[in-house]
């Protein structure tokens, strides 16, 4: 039996989902993503530059037949804009998976939860597979699961902050109750943060800045793949309990007297 991240009935071998923003160029984007092993990649929906339309397109580098394209609603500050963005993304013909994010404030980029709930209701009803970006709040996670979201994606820390998992206890509560995958989205800074998320039992992790803005994005992409794999394996293996005092690793029998 393989170990898969299952989202709405589809199995993914990789538990790492990566963004495509902030890279130096499309070549670097492609190389980092290939090395990360990610099968799902997020993209944003934006206006074409009509004065210079011949620029290369991201999808020229990321074959939608090879990668699952996950369009986001980044930059949307209300439910209507988020739903409109999802409609545009769907028309591009890359599937019905969407990363729903309705931003509440441009300084923290924390989600507007009432607006996220409102948009999620509409999108689920319209047949989208909705993966919502949320704060690390168990009640919100439960509500979005009840609406019919295919996963919940609590933040570890503010988007792009690299602070790592700020509230592991809330994530644990979310994990205890969720019946859909819990994917840590945003705030990861380095490979140990990703490993920690998976060790705790999170089903996946989504990141962009931590790879794209690393000094060496290609090497960091590999580190993240390994971090996610290590964390998942450690979770499956079952860690030892933490104890205050030592337990000898070498036998006490047969000691020289």
């Amino acid at each position, binding site marked *: 039996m393989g170990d898969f991240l299952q989202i709405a009935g589809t199995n993914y071998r990789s538990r790492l989902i990566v963004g495509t*923003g902030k890279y130096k160029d499309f070549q670097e984007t492609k190389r980092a993503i290939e090395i990360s092993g990610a099968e799902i990649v*997020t*993209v*944003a929906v934006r206006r074409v530059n*009509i004065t210079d339309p011949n620029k290369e397109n*991201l*999808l020229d580098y990321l074959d939608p037949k090879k990668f699952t394209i996950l369009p*986001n609603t980044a930059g949307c500050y209300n439910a209507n804009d988020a739903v409109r963005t999802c409609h545009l993304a769907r028309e591009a013909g890359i599937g019905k998976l969407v990363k729903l994010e309705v931003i509440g404030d441009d300084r923290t980029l924390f989600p507007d939860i009432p607006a996220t709930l409102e948009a999620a209701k509409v999108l689920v009803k319209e047949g989208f597979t909705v993966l919502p970006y949320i704060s690390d709040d168990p009640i919100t996670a439960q509500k979005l699961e009840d609406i019919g979201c295919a996963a919940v994606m609590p933040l570890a820390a503010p988007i792009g902050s690299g602070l790592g998992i700020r509230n592991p206890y809330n994530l644990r509560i979310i994990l205890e109750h969720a019946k859909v995958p819990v994917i840590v989205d945003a705030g990861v800074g380095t490979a140990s943060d990703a490993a920690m998320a998976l060790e705790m039992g999170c089903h996946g992790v989504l990141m962009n800045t931590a790879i794209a803005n690393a000094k060496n994005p290609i090497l960091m992409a590999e580190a993240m793949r390994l971090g996610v794999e290590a964390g998942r394996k450690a979770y499956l293996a079952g860690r030892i309990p933490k104890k205050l005092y030592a337990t000898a690793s070498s036998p006490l029998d047969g000691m020289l007297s």
Partner: protein
Amino acid sequence: MKVQINGEDKEIADGLSVAGLLKQLQIRPGRVVVERNREIVARDTYDAMFLAEGDALEIVHFVGGG
């Protein structure tokens, strides 16, 4: 006739279709989605969808994002 494309006022030829406009702008139809007056234009109707004076068009595509 006057239309608005991605928020900018533009003068285009009368009777231009969506397909014709994309061709004129040198945009590959397969990589974009077009919205006309807030309604998405289905890709298989680009040839038959003719633009009218005052139309507001949005032409979008996927870019890098997280």
